[in-house]
């Protein structure tokens, strides 16, 4: 708490006014309105709202396509996060030595963060292109399997997963490298003298000491994969083929904007809201208790 406080009655209100106005108008009111809309259904011509209680939620719970979307979202987010982090941690551990030029490597690793998911998607779309892409071309030497994402859902999912991991990978690696450099070599050397092998040393010392970095990267990557990949899906696969890459955010947007099913879309927003609130709560609990700083 500051001891020095400026005595002024109205100025502080003027200072917070823009923030408060935007927060109320574009965050609180729409969030509240989503809650309200989720209990209604738009009439076929969209001119009237009919009260339907929890019908939208019941419909979603019984809708196989929606449940599939939920599964796709979780698979997508967890694969992007876990594979991305595991790979980054593995490489960082192998490359953990006191070497020159680390800042140069850092520069060469961080730039993909600046590429929009949608643009990353377009680049990978061509790399995966069944007729002209380099990846199916190379894979054709190894197997006769047709890696055609237009036809096979899992290939489409792999395509967006790879694009997402690619965009995140450099800075995951850069953060792990920095985290590893901060660990005292004396601790590891002592363990080594006590007869602990490299794998034992990693799991007993390095990994626990890296837990704040891992936690930070985990939340960041999960949020990214869950919410910020909308552009990737929209510009690359449009949820397809079928609904193989239709993640929850994409479905909520599509039902609302293309299907004009406002109540149904609002109900999906409410479910997403519950998810975010749960994740944030978890984040704060976990950040306070478990992680070694």
């Amino acid at each position, binding site marked *: 708490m500051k001891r020095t406080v400026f005595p002024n009655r109205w*100025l502080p209100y003027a*200072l917070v006014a823009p*923030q*408060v106005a935007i927060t109320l108008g574009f965050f609180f009111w729409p969030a509240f309105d989503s809650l309200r809309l989720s209990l209604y259904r738009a009439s076929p011509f969209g001119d009237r709202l009919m009260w339907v209680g929890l019908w939208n939620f019941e419909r979603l719970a019984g809708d196989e396509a929606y449940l599939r979307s939920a599964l796709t979202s979780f698979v997508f987010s967890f694969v992007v996060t876990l594979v991305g982090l595991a790979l980054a941690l593995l490489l960082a551990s192998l490359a953990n030595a006191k070497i020159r030029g680390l800042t140069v490597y*850092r520069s060469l690793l961080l730039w993909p963060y*600046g590429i929009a998911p949608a643009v990353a998607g377009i680049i990978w779309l061509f790399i995966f292109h069944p007729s*002209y892409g380099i990846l199916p071309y190379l894979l054709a030497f190894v197997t006769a399997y047709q890696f055609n994402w237009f036809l096979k859902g899992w290939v489409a999912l792999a395509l967006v997963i790879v694009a997402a991991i690619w965009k995140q990978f450099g800075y995951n690696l850069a953060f792990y490298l920095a985290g590893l450099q901060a660990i005292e070599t004396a601790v590891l050397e002592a363990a080594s003298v006590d007869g602990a092998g490299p794998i034992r040393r990693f799991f007993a010392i390095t990994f626990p000491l890296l837990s704040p970095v891992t936690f930070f990267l985990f*939340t960041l990557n999960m949020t990214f994969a869950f919410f910020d990949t909308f552009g990737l899906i929209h510009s690359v696969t449009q949820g397809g083929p079928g609904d193989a890459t239709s993640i929850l955010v994409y479905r909520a947007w599509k039902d609302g904007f293309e299907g004009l099913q406002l109540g149904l879309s*609002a109900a999906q927003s409410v479910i997403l809201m519950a998810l975010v609130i749960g994740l944030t709560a978890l984040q704060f609990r976990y950040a306070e208790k478990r992680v070694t700083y």
Partner: protein
Amino acid sequence: MARDRGAWLAHAILGAAVVVLAFPLYYAFVISTQTLGEVTSLPPKLLPSTALLDNYAEAWARVKMGRLLLNSAIVALAVAFGKISISLLSAFAIVYFNFRGKQVVFWMIFVTLMLPVPVRIVSTYQVISVLGWVDTYWGLTVPLMASATGTFLFRQFYQTIPDSLAEAAQLDGAGPMRFLWSILLPLSKANIAALFVILFVYGWNDYLWPLMVTNRPEMRTAVIGIEALVPRTSQLPEWNVAMAAAMMVLLPPVLVIVAMQRWFVKGLIETEK
């Protein structure tokens, strides 16, 4: 000996990571320099060719790239400076003033963290449409300017500034706005720069919001506008033009990161805390 081998291995791994990471960008660039015939020939050609100018000019003309890039620049700069100013002012009010309702304001700002655009898709659009802000720069930028992370960043920073500075300013007869302008602002330069990089990249690359609040092609931002150039199944496979467009759209935020790297790293760490 062991140390040498470790260093050698480290260079090999990091070098390989850098190359693998850069390959898709290199490949996209190479494609953007080839003719249609080269793009569609197998095996894929991995060296730059001669059609660079043709492809970039074609992409530029076909989607009115100049307008798209201008829109993106306006949005990215307005969002970055708007968010920075708004959060700077609210953090100043929260740290340096006592006022009724301060706790409420603080919690309100905190709660916005839990309400990203995807959780209020349809309703936020309705607010924009009631205001008549569809297809306007107001609609594209103002609703994105509230920032919990920015406010917390500045709040945390102000709390580390010794009280004696504000006391001295008061003794010299400087009012609060004077103190903010001549003392706090210069001290906040590094934080502002850090936040700027993160927010510029965010504003430039954001997709869902501009997709929702714009319908007219000339109000689209670049990340959305170039989708029209991606060849679909029934179209001529002009991937060279698509890649030329992709290169133009990805360059500005990547350059900002490279040029302001020190602040970028600081920003990444500070905003996610």
